[in-house]
């Protein structure tokens, strides 16, 4: 393991950086420190923001001295390997890849010299590590094989519907809310990644996994109807 670095990010946050590259091993360290800190409940420690290779730790300088906090973080970081951490969860997301929901699937197929079906097969074959959530509430950053990569749109769309599954370079992700965006859209999930009236409001967590399974339009609509009937407004 690379030695962790502790860097100030202003006077109310600290970065614990485990490396400079993207790798599942580095991300695992981020996740485990995130879990350890949440469990430890250290006075003065506020929000935690896990990302690919570092954890941003917000703190209240009136409640904890920076040196005490850094010492505690060093101890926790050094002890991460001493115990078993809960196994990551895998969330299965049904996705309808039909043209109505995936307007760019043909483009992605053409980019890679594959058929539509082959793109879907590759996209649904593996479980993807959620390196981080960002961009919008609950948007998962997932890395995939280069076999179905595609460039972003030169002109981002004004509104991509919630649930849209996209590809940008060798990343794939899901738009949790209607938002502008430049990713190539290959399908849509009826599962709500973000629902402010649900506990928890955001379905996925950094460090867990997502797997996509293909569904037809009928099944998509049936799941969407159940989600609406679930009593959550908006």
């Amino acid at each position: 393991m690379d030695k962790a670095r502790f860097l100030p990010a202003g006077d109310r946050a600290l970065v614990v950086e485990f490396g400079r590259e993207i790798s599942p091993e580095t991300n695992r360290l981020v996740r485990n420190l995130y879990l350890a800190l949440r469990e430890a409940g250290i006075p003065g420690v506020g929000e935690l923001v896990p990302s690919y290779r570092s954890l941003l730790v917000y703190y209240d300088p009136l409640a904890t001295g920076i040196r005490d906090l850094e010492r505690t973080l060093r101890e926790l970081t050094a002890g991460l390997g001493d115990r078993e951490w809960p196994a990551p969860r895998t969330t299965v997301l049904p996705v309808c890849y039909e043209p109505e929901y995936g307007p760019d699937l043909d483009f992605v197929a053409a980019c890679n010299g594959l058929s539509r079906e082959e793109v879907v097969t590759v996209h649904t074959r593996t479980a993807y590590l959620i390196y981080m959530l960002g961009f919008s509430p609950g948007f998962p950053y997932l890395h995939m094989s280069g076999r179905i990569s595609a460039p972003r749109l030169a002109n981002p769309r004004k509104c991509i519907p919630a649930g849209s599954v996209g590809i940008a370079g060798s990343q794939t992700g899901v738009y949790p809310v209607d938002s502008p965006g430049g990713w190539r859209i290959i399908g849509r999930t009826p599962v709500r990644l973000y629902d402010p009236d649900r506990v928890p409001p955001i379905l996925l967590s950094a460090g867990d996994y997502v797997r996509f399974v293909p569904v037809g339009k009928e099944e998509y609509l049936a799941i969407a109807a159940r989600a609406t009937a679930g009593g959550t407004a908006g």
Partner: protein
Amino acid sequence: MTVLYVEKPGLLTTVQDLGRHGFQAYGLPAAGAADPYALQLANVLAGNDPGEAALEMTLAGPVLRVLAGGLVAVAGADLEARRNGSPLPLWETVAVQSGDVLSFGGARRGCRAYLALGGGVAVPEVLGSRSTYLRCRLGGLEGRALRAGDRVASREETGRIFRRVPAPFVPEYGASHTVRVVPGPQDDHFTPAGVQAFLTGEYRVANDSDRMGCRLAGPAIEHRPGMADIVSDGVPPGAVQVPGHGQPIVLLADRQTTGGYPKIACVVSTDLWRLAQAKPGDSIRFVPVSLDEAHRLYRIYREQFVSLCRQLRTGDMAGKQYRVSIGGTTHDVWVEESVAEYRKR
């Protein structure tokens, strides 16, 4: 209960409190008032807890007709606040009556003003906050900025104590700002010349600045070769990120939770309001301080702020406002009660 009818919405008027905290790990930005100092004092003046929801008005303010009166307070930028055409005092409690018209013009000093209503603005809490996050149409009034025809009401009646923020606690909003920064976390992504440019150059606030970030134009900040991008990581408020073009962006309340540009420094908490109040065209200079110094500044600021809020609440700086009519003109007269100690300073 105070009720306001929006005649004209102004450039960008939104409901904001101290932000939506606890969801940044899930990619949900905190939002909240760009200038929490002015928001909190407006609230205390209106008889609220400091973190209540109020209206944040930007550069060109709204025109609001009072449908039901109550206590209000305006703090922050000077947006030419008027009541029924006469200047409305900032940084003090004001009683408004049904039929009054509160109008705001263009920004004379500062960029953002806060209008607090006694009781706080009545909009539903979403994930623990009433702040508007425009990009996801979340919180506030239907997730959007105010529009003509909207009604904004307060939630509950409050007492009728009149308060005024003493002059030493009212910030000066000039056109040039010196802002202290703590270097890092990615200052090693820049050449020595790049760091030098950042710390000695004069930057102008660009027109496309918004609640997400204060965009600056000035001497280009040079990255080390191949180091203009980083693997995305978490970004605190005040982070100065520098994309490949070398022009810095200081991230504010609506920033995304993570970003992929290196951060040369972060603005200290006690100076963040300066960027929230900087107008397009204003000048910004950055001065480095140590982390210990930033913490010392923060401790002093918090002690003063807590003490000020306590004094305002307990009425040590309270007075009474009377409305008198002389020759057909209405005047508001402020009678201070216990100001002897304050005058001695």
